[in-house]
Protein backbone atom coordinates (compact mmCIF):
# COMPACT_ATOMS: atom_id res chain seq x y z
CA UNK A 1 0.00 0.00 0.00
CA UNK A 2 1.48 3.37 -0.96
CA UNK A 3 2.20 5.69 1.93
CA UNK A 4 0.81 9.18 1.77
CA UNK A 5 2.83 11.85 3.47
CA UNK A 6 1.12 14.95 4.82
CA UNK A 7 3.65 17.74 4.67
CA UNK A 8 1.04 20.10 6.03
CA UNK A 9 1.22 18.51 9.44
CA UNK A 10 5.01 18.53 9.42
CA UNK A 11 4.95 22.23 8.62
CA UNK A 12 2.66 22.79 11.59
CA UNK A 13 5.09 20.88 13.80
CA UNK A 14 7.96 23.00 12.48
CA UNK A 15 6.33 26.12 13.91
CA UNK A 16 7.09 24.83 17.43
CA UNK A 17 10.64 25.31 18.74
CA UNK A 18 12.75 22.27 17.74
CA UNK A 19 9.79 20.54 16.07
CA UNK A 20 11.82 20.79 12.86
CA UNK A 21 14.45 18.43 14.26
CA UNK A 22 12.10 15.60 13.29
CA UNK A 23 13.41 15.85 9.69
CA UNK A 24 16.76 14.43 10.77
CA UNK A 25 15.34 11.16 12.13
CA UNK A 26 16.58 8.18 10.09
CA UNK A 27 14.58 5.60 12.06
CA UNK A 28 17.51 3.71 13.60
CA UNK A 29 15.64 2.98 16.84
CA UNK A 30 18.42 3.95 19.26
CA UNK A 31 15.76 5.91 21.17
CA UNK A 32 13.84 2.75 22.04
CA UNK A 33 16.32 0.49 23.84
CA UNK A 34 16.75 2.46 27.05
CA UNK A 35 13.39 4.25 27.05
CA UNK A 36 11.88 3.64 30.52
CA UNK A 37 8.33 3.94 29.22
CA UNK A 38 8.95 1.40 26.45
CA UNK A 39 10.38 -0.94 29.09
CA UNK A 40 7.12 -0.95 31.03
CA UNK A 41 4.72 -0.46 28.12
CA UNK A 42 5.81 -2.18 24.89
CA UNK A 43 3.06 -0.32 22.97
CA UNK A 44 5.06 2.88 23.50
CA UNK A 45 7.81 3.31 20.96
CA UNK A 46 9.51 6.67 20.34
CA UNK A 47 10.71 5.53 16.90
CA UNK A 48 7.10 4.85 15.86
CA UNK A 49 6.08 8.29 17.11
CA UNK A 50 8.82 9.85 14.99
CA UNK A 51 7.74 7.77 11.96
CA UNK A 52 4.09 8.74 12.35
CA UNK A 53 5.14 12.38 12.63
CA UNK A 54 7.34 12.02 9.53
CA UNK A 55 4.41 10.60 7.59
CA UNK A 56 2.27 13.42 8.94
CA UNK A 57 -0.28 11.04 10.45
CA UNK A 58 -1.86 13.84 12.45
CA UNK A 59 -4.86 11.83 13.63
CA UNK A 60 -2.61 9.21 15.27
CA UNK A 61 -0.76 11.82 17.29
CA UNK A 62 -3.07 14.78 17.77
CA UNK A 63 -6.02 13.01 19.32
CA UNK A 64 -7.66 12.12 22.61
CA UNK A 65 -5.36 9.83 24.60
CA UNK A 66 -2.32 10.57 22.43
CA UNK A 67 0.60 8.18 23.05
CA UNK A 68 2.99 11.10 23.62
CA UNK A 69 1.64 11.64 27.15
CA UNK A 70 3.25 8.35 28.15
CA UNK A 71 6.70 9.89 27.61
CA UNK A 72 8.65 10.12 30.89
CA UNK A 73 10.54 13.24 29.78
CA UNK A 74 13.75 11.58 31.00
CA UNK A 75 15.95 12.67 28.05
CA UNK A 76 17.47 9.22 27.54
CA UNK A 77 16.46 9.26 23.84
CA UNK A 78 18.14 12.67 23.49
CA UNK A 79 21.24 11.06 25.00
CA UNK A 80 21.18 8.05 22.66
CA UNK A 81 20.18 9.62 19.32
CA UNK A 82 23.12 9.45 16.89
CA UNK A 83 21.49 12.16 14.76
CA UNK A 84 21.16 14.56 17.71
CA UNK A 85 17.56 15.15 16.68
CA UNK A 86 16.28 15.10 20.27
CA UNK A 87 13.21 12.81 20.02
CA UNK A 88 11.99 14.09 23.40
CA UNK A 89 11.90 17.67 22.08
CA UNK A 90 9.84 16.54 19.09
CA UNK A 91 7.49 14.80 21.54
CA UNK A 92 7.28 18.04 23.56
CA UNK A 93 6.53 19.96 20.34
CA UNK A 94 3.70 17.46 19.69
CA UNK A 95 2.47 18.08 23.24
CA UNK A 96 2.38 21.83 22.48
CA UNK A 97 0.16 21.13 19.46
CA UNK A 98 -2.07 18.93 21.62
CA UNK A 99 -2.31 21.62 24.31
CA UNK A 100 -3.26 24.18 21.63
CA UNK A 101 -6.11 21.89 20.59
CA UNK A 102 -7.31 21.45 24.17
CA UNK A 103 -6.10 17.83 24.20
CA UNK A 104 -3.70 17.93 27.17
CA UNK A 105 -4.51 15.66 30.14
CA UNK A 106 -6.36 17.31 33.03
CA UNK A 107 -4.00 19.30 35.22
CA UNK A 108 -1.30 20.12 32.68
CA UNK A 109 -2.67 23.47 31.49
CA UNK A 110 -3.92 24.62 34.93
CA UNK A 111 -0.44 23.88 36.31
CA UNK A 112 1.09 26.11 33.62
CA UNK A 113 -1.49 28.82 34.20
CA UNK A 114 -0.66 28.90 37.90
CA UNK A 115 3.00 29.56 37.10
CA UNK A 116 2.04 32.24 34.58
CA UNK A 117 -0.34 34.11 36.87
CA UNK A 118 1.29 33.70 40.29
CA UNK A 119 4.95 33.16 39.34
CA UNK A 120 4.95 29.90 41.29
CA UNK A 121 4.02 26.37 40.26
CA UNK A 122 2.95 25.53 43.82
CA UNK A 123 0.13 27.18 45.74
CA UNK A 124 1.25 29.21 48.76
CA UNK A 125 -1.09 28.63 51.70
CA UNK A 126 -1.38 30.33 55.08
CA UNK A 127 0.57 27.42 56.53
CA UNK A 128 3.51 28.06 54.19
CA UNK A 129 4.64 31.30 55.85
CA UNK A 130 4.01 29.91 59.33
CA UNK A 131 6.21 26.85 58.68
CA UNK A 132 8.91 29.01 57.10
CA UNK A 133 8.91 31.28 60.15
CA UNK A 134 9.11 28.26 62.49
CA UNK A 135 12.17 27.11 60.57
CA UNK A 136 13.74 30.57 60.84
CA UNK A 137 13.42 31.34 57.12
CA UNK A 138 12.67 34.79 55.62
CA UNK A 139 9.15 35.40 54.24
CA UNK A 140 8.55 34.66 50.55
CA UNK A 141 9.02 37.72 48.32
CA UNK A 142 6.26 39.33 46.25
CA UNK A 143 6.88 38.20 42.68
CA UNK A 144 6.88 40.47 39.59
CA UNK A 145 3.70 38.97 38.11
CA UNK A 146 2.99 42.12 36.08
CA UNK A 147 6.25 41.56 34.22
CA UNK A 148 5.24 37.96 33.54
CA UNK A 149 1.90 39.08 32.11
CA UNK A 150 3.72 41.44 29.74
CA UNK A 151 6.35 39.01 28.45
CA UNK A 152 3.93 36.09 28.13
CA UNK A 153 1.72 37.91 25.66
CA UNK A 154 2.36 36.47 22.20
Amino acid sequence: MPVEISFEFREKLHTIIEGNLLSFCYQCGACVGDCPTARFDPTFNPRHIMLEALYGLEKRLICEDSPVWKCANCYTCYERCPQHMKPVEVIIALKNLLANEGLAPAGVVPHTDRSKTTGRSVLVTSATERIRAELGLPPLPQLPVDELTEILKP
Partner: protein
Amino acid sequence: MTSPEAAETAAPQTTKKTKSRKEAVKVAFFRGCLIPVKYPQMEVAVRHTLPKLGIEPVDVPGFTCCPDPIYFKATDKESWLTMAARNLCEAEERGLDIFTVCSGCTATLSETSHLLAENEELRARVNKRLARVGKNYKGTTKVRHIVTLIRDLVDPAVISESVRRPLTDLRVAIHYGCHLLKPSPIMNVDDPDNPYMMERLVRATGATPIRHKEWILCCGKAIAKSELKQKPMETVLCSVKEVNADVLCVICPSCFGEFDFGQIKASKRLERDVTTPAIYYFQLLAIAQGMSADDVGLSRHRVKPERLIELYGDPL
Protein backbone atom coordinates in the same frame (compact mmCIF):
# COMPACT_ATOMS: atom_id res chain seq x y z
CA MET B 1 29.69 -1.61 35.76
CA THR B 2 32.68 0.36 37.02
CA SER B 3 32.99 0.44 40.78
CA PRO B 4 32.20 3.74 42.50
CA GLU B 5 35.82 4.04 43.61
CA ALA B 6 37.17 3.53 40.08
CA ALA B 7 34.68 6.04 38.71
CA GLU B 8 35.84 8.61 41.25
CA THR B 9 39.47 8.10 40.39
CA ALA B 10 38.61 8.67 36.75
CA ALA B 11 36.64 11.83 37.60
CA PRO B 12 37.88 15.09 36.12
CA GLN B 13 39.86 17.22 38.52
CA THR B 14 38.79 20.83 38.46
CA THR B 15 40.72 23.80 39.75
CA LYS B 16 39.94 26.91 41.82
CA LYS B 17 38.53 25.08 44.82
CA THR B 18 37.53 26.90 47.97
CA LYS B 19 40.40 25.38 49.93
CA SER B 20 42.75 28.14 48.85
CA ARG B 21 40.19 30.92 48.65
CA LYS B 22 39.81 33.42 51.47
CA GLU B 23 36.48 35.06 50.59
CA ALA B 24 33.19 33.26 50.07
CA VAL B 25 31.99 32.99 46.46
CA LYS B 26 28.68 34.78 45.92
CA VAL B 27 26.20 32.93 43.71
CA ALA B 28 22.55 33.77 43.01
CA PHE B 29 20.32 31.32 44.90
CA PHE B 30 17.60 30.09 42.53
CA ARG B 31 15.24 28.43 44.99
CA GLY B 32 12.52 27.41 42.57
CA CYS B 33 9.00 26.69 43.84
CA LEU B 34 8.96 23.27 45.51
CA ILE B 35 11.69 23.90 48.08
CA PRO B 36 10.64 27.31 49.47
CA VAL B 37 6.92 26.47 49.45
CA LYS B 38 6.55 22.71 50.02
CA TYR B 39 9.88 21.62 51.50
CA PRO B 40 11.33 24.68 53.29
CA GLN B 41 13.35 22.31 55.51
CA MET B 42 15.59 21.78 52.47
CA GLU B 43 16.10 25.53 52.12
CA VAL B 44 17.23 25.61 55.76
CA ALA B 45 19.76 22.88 55.04
CA VAL B 46 21.14 24.64 51.94
CA ARG B 47 21.44 28.01 53.73
CA HIS B 48 23.20 26.35 56.64
CA THR B 49 25.63 24.09 54.78
CA LEU B 50 26.88 26.21 51.87
CA PRO B 51 28.63 28.99 53.86
CA LYS B 52 30.64 26.26 55.57
CA LEU B 53 31.89 25.25 52.12
CA GLY B 54 32.88 28.82 51.20
CA ILE B 55 29.79 29.66 49.15
CA GLU B 56 27.44 32.53 49.93
CA PRO B 57 23.92 32.12 48.51
CA VAL B 58 22.57 35.50 47.34
CA ASP B 59 18.79 35.98 47.32
CA VAL B 60 17.34 37.54 44.16
CA PRO B 61 13.75 38.68 44.85
CA GLY B 62 12.82 38.88 41.14
CA PHE B 63 13.24 35.15 40.46
CA THR B 64 9.96 33.42 39.56
CA CYS B 65 9.10 29.79 38.74
CA CYS B 66 11.81 28.53 36.34
CA PRO B 67 9.19 27.44 34.74
CA ASP B 68 8.95 23.66 35.01
CA PRO B 69 10.32 21.50 32.18
CA ILE B 70 7.46 19.00 32.23
CA TYR B 71 3.99 20.60 32.29
CA PHE B 72 4.76 24.20 31.41
CA LYS B 73 7.12 23.20 28.61
CA ALA B 74 4.52 20.72 27.29
CA THR B 75 1.92 23.49 27.15
CA ASP B 76 3.85 26.33 25.53
CA LYS B 77 7.54 26.06 24.79
CA GLU B 78 7.95 29.64 23.57
CA SER B 79 6.55 31.10 26.82
CA TRP B 80 8.60 28.58 28.78
CA LEU B 81 11.76 29.86 27.16
CA THR B 82 10.79 33.51 27.64
CA MET B 83 9.96 33.15 31.32
CA ALA B 84 13.21 31.24 31.91
CA ALA B 85 15.22 33.91 30.07
CA ARG B 86 13.67 36.58 32.31
CA ASN B 87 15.02 34.69 35.32
CA LEU B 88 18.47 34.51 33.75
CA CYS B 89 18.33 38.31 33.23
CA GLU B 90 17.70 38.85 36.96
CA ALA B 91 21.04 37.22 37.80
CA GLU B 92 22.83 38.68 34.79
CA GLU B 93 21.83 42.23 35.78
CA ARG B 94 23.52 41.64 39.14
CA GLY B 95 26.63 40.14 37.57
CA LEU B 96 26.02 36.81 39.30
CA ASP B 97 26.06 33.17 38.25
CA ILE B 98 23.10 31.03 39.28
CA PHE B 99 22.90 27.87 41.33
CA THR B 100 19.74 25.79 41.48
CA VAL B 101 18.59 23.31 44.11
CA CYS B 102 16.09 21.39 41.98
CA SER B 103 16.98 19.33 38.94
CA GLY B 104 13.88 20.59 37.11
CA CYS B 105 14.96 24.22 37.51
CA THR B 106 18.43 23.19 36.36
CA ALA B 107 17.00 21.56 33.24
CA THR B 108 14.92 24.62 32.31
CA LEU B 109 17.55 27.27 32.97
CA SER B 110 20.47 25.31 31.48
CA GLU B 111 18.55 24.40 28.37
CA THR B 112 17.37 27.98 27.92
CA SER B 113 20.87 29.33 28.27
CA HIS B 114 22.10 26.71 25.78
CA LEU B 115 19.33 27.27 23.21
CA LEU B 116 19.62 31.04 23.33
CA ALA B 117 23.39 30.86 22.92
CA GLU B 118 23.25 28.63 19.83
CA ASN B 119 20.19 30.13 18.12
CA GLU B 120 20.39 33.86 17.45
CA GLU B 121 17.01 34.04 15.80
CA LEU B 122 15.39 32.53 18.88
CA ARG B 123 17.32 34.86 21.17
CA ALA B 124 16.08 37.86 19.17
CA ARG B 125 12.49 36.59 19.43
CA VAL B 126 12.78 36.12 23.20
CA ASN B 127 14.51 39.46 23.68
CA LYS B 128 11.73 41.19 21.76
CA ARG B 129 9.32 39.99 24.43
CA LEU B 130 11.72 40.80 27.27
CA ALA B 131 12.16 44.34 25.93
CA ARG B 132 8.55 45.03 26.98
CA VAL B 133 9.76 45.03 30.59
CA GLY B 134 13.12 46.67 29.88
CA LYS B 135 15.12 43.45 29.93
CA ASN B 136 17.65 42.01 27.48
CA TYR B 137 19.33 38.63 27.83
CA LYS B 138 22.98 38.64 26.79
CA GLY B 139 24.05 35.15 27.85
CA THR B 140 26.73 35.87 30.44
CA THR B 141 25.23 34.02 33.39
CA LYS B 142 26.33 30.49 34.12
CA VAL B 143 23.74 28.05 35.49
CA ARG B 144 24.75 25.18 37.73
CA HIS B 145 22.96 22.69 39.93
CA ILE B 146 24.18 22.91 43.52
CA VAL B 147 25.94 19.55 43.11
CA THR B 148 27.80 20.84 40.05
CA LEU B 149 28.62 24.08 41.84
CA ILE B 150 30.26 22.08 44.60
CA ARG B 151 32.08 19.87 42.12
CA ASP B 152 33.52 22.97 40.44
CA LEU B 153 34.25 25.14 43.46
CA VAL B 154 34.73 23.04 46.56
CA ASP B 155 37.58 20.69 47.34
CA PRO B 156 36.13 17.39 48.63
CA ALA B 157 38.43 17.74 51.66
CA VAL B 158 36.64 21.00 52.58
CA ILE B 159 33.34 19.10 52.78
CA SER B 160 34.88 16.45 55.01
CA GLU B 161 36.47 19.13 57.20
CA SER B 162 33.05 20.79 57.68
CA VAL B 163 31.69 17.52 59.11
CA ARG B 164 31.56 17.53 62.91
CA ARG B 165 30.01 14.09 63.33
CA PRO B 166 30.75 11.60 60.56
CA LEU B 167 27.67 9.50 59.73
CA THR B 168 29.79 6.34 59.77
CA ASP B 169 26.99 3.92 60.60
CA LEU B 170 24.62 5.13 57.91
CA ARG B 171 23.98 3.23 54.68
CA VAL B 172 22.83 5.57 51.94
CA ALA B 173 21.18 4.49 48.70
CA ILE B 174 21.25 7.09 45.95
CA HIS B 175 18.74 8.20 43.34
CA TYR B 176 20.29 10.58 40.80
CA GLY B 177 17.11 11.34 38.89
CA CYS B 178 17.11 12.28 35.19
CA HIS B 179 17.43 16.02 34.85
CA LEU B 180 20.62 16.48 36.83
CA LEU B 181 22.51 14.40 34.26
CA LYS B 182 20.64 14.48 30.97
CA PRO B 183 21.01 15.76 28.32
CA SER B 184 24.71 15.50 29.09
CA PRO B 185 25.91 17.84 26.30
CA ILE B 186 23.90 20.63 27.98
CA MET B 187 24.09 19.66 31.64
CA ASN B 188 27.78 18.83 31.38
CA VAL B 189 27.70 17.35 34.86
CA ASP B 190 28.67 13.72 34.97
CA ASP B 191 28.45 10.53 32.92
CA PRO B 192 24.69 9.82 32.84
CA ASP B 193 25.31 6.08 32.58
CA ASN B 194 27.91 5.88 35.32
CA PRO B 195 27.73 8.97 37.52
CA TYR B 196 29.97 9.32 40.56
CA MET B 197 29.28 12.74 42.05
CA MET B 198 26.66 11.87 44.63
CA GLU B 199 28.69 8.96 45.90
CA ARG B 200 31.57 11.32 46.50
CA LEU B 201 29.29 13.77 48.33
CA VAL B 202 27.75 11.06 50.50
CA ARG B 203 31.16 9.65 51.35
CA ALA B 204 32.27 13.14 52.46
CA THR B 205 29.66 12.99 55.25
CA GLY B 206 31.24 9.77 56.53
CA ALA B 207 28.26 7.66 55.40
CA THR B 208 28.49 4.69 53.05
CA PRO B 209 26.96 5.17 49.59
CA ILE B 210 25.27 2.08 48.18
CA ARG B 211 24.45 1.30 44.59
CA HIS B 212 21.32 -0.62 43.73
CA LYS B 213 20.53 -2.25 40.43
CA GLU B 214 17.98 0.32 39.21
CA TRP B 215 20.06 3.28 40.33
CA ILE B 216 19.66 5.32 37.15
CA LEU B 217 16.06 4.44 36.29
CA CYS B 218 13.64 7.35 35.94
CA CYS B 219 11.04 7.69 38.76
CA GLY B 220 8.28 8.12 36.17
CA LYS B 221 6.93 11.39 37.51
CA ALA B 222 6.30 12.96 34.10
CA ILE B 223 4.30 10.03 32.70
CA ALA B 224 0.77 11.36 32.43
CA LYS B 225 -0.88 7.90 32.63
CA SER B 226 -1.36 6.88 36.23
CA GLU B 227 -1.10 3.08 35.97
CA LEU B 228 1.99 3.21 33.81
CA LYS B 229 3.53 5.92 35.96
CA GLN B 230 3.56 3.60 39.00
CA LYS B 231 5.75 0.98 37.36
CA PRO B 232 9.15 2.69 37.22
CA MET B 233 8.57 4.07 40.73
CA GLU B 234 7.81 0.60 42.11
CA THR B 235 10.79 -0.88 40.29
CA VAL B 236 13.18 1.69 41.80
CA LEU B 237 11.70 1.24 45.28
CA CYS B 238 11.97 -2.58 45.18
CA SER B 239 15.56 -2.29 44.00
CA VAL B 240 16.41 0.13 46.82
CA LYS B 241 14.66 -2.10 49.37
CA GLU B 242 16.90 -5.03 48.36
CA VAL B 243 20.08 -3.25 49.48
CA ASN B 244 18.66 -2.52 52.93
CA ALA B 245 19.73 1.11 53.10
CA ASP B 246 18.87 3.47 55.97
CA VAL B 247 17.93 6.33 53.69
CA LEU B 248 17.38 7.06 50.01
CA CYS B 249 19.35 10.17 49.17
CA VAL B 250 18.03 12.47 46.42
CA ILE B 251 19.20 15.75 45.01
CA CYS B 252 15.93 17.12 43.72
CA PRO B 253 12.75 18.13 45.61
CA SER B 254 10.64 16.75 42.80
CA CYS B 255 12.22 13.28 43.14
CA PHE B 256 11.83 13.66 46.89
CA GLY B 257 8.11 14.38 46.57
CA GLU B 258 7.63 11.38 44.29
CA PHE B 259 9.41 9.03 46.68
CA ASP B 260 8.24 10.39 50.04
CA PHE B 261 4.58 9.99 49.20
CA GLY B 262 4.95 7.46 46.39
CA GLN B 263 6.48 4.76 48.55
CA ILE B 264 3.52 4.72 50.92
CA LYS B 265 1.17 4.29 47.96
CA ALA B 266 3.49 1.70 46.35
CA SER B 267 3.67 -0.34 49.58
CA LYS B 268 -0.12 -0.47 49.70
CA ARG B 269 -0.40 -1.54 46.08
CA LEU B 270 2.30 -4.17 46.34
CA GLU B 271 1.07 -5.31 49.78
CA ARG B 272 4.57 -5.26 51.21
CA ASP B 273 6.84 -2.66 52.70
CA VAL B 274 8.96 -1.07 49.98
CA THR B 275 9.76 2.07 51.93
CA THR B 276 13.23 3.54 52.40
CA PRO B 277 13.02 7.06 53.87
CA ALA B 278 13.92 9.71 51.29
CA ILE B 279 16.20 12.58 52.26
CA TYR B 280 17.63 15.56 50.38
CA TYR B 281 21.42 15.42 50.34
CA PHE B 282 21.90 18.78 52.06
CA GLN B 283 19.75 17.70 55.02
CA LEU B 284 22.17 14.81 55.44
CA LEU B 285 25.18 17.13 55.22
CA ALA B 286 23.58 19.59 57.68
CA ILE B 287 23.18 16.80 60.23
CA ALA B 288 26.78 15.73 59.72
CA GLN B 289 27.79 19.37 60.24
CA GLY B 290 25.98 19.34 63.60
CA MET B 291 22.37 20.38 63.01
CA SER B 292 19.64 18.33 64.64
CA ALA B 293 16.93 16.28 62.92
CA ASP B 294 14.42 18.92 64.08
CA ASP B 295 16.50 21.78 62.67
CA VAL B 296 16.36 20.24 59.20
CA GLY B 297 12.69 19.32 59.49
CA LEU B 298 12.90 15.53 59.26
CA SER B 299 9.66 15.28 61.24
CA ARG B 300 7.91 16.84 58.23
CA HIS B 301 8.73 13.85 56.02
CA ARG B 302 5.96 11.28 55.56
CA VAL B 303 8.38 8.38 55.83
CA LYS B 304 10.72 9.36 58.65
CA PRO B 305 14.36 8.30 58.61
CA GLU B 306 14.13 6.64 62.04
CA ARG B 307 17.61 5.17 62.14
CA LEU B 308 19.25 8.44 61.08
CA ILE B 309 17.27 10.30 63.76
CA GLU B 310 18.15 7.71 66.40
CA LEU B 311 21.87 7.71 65.58
CA TYR B 312 22.55 11.34 64.70
CA GLY B 313 19.32 13.29 65.26
CA ASP B 314 20.25 15.14 68.46
CA PRO B 315 21.64 18.67 68.42
CA LEU B 316 25.41 18.68 68.70
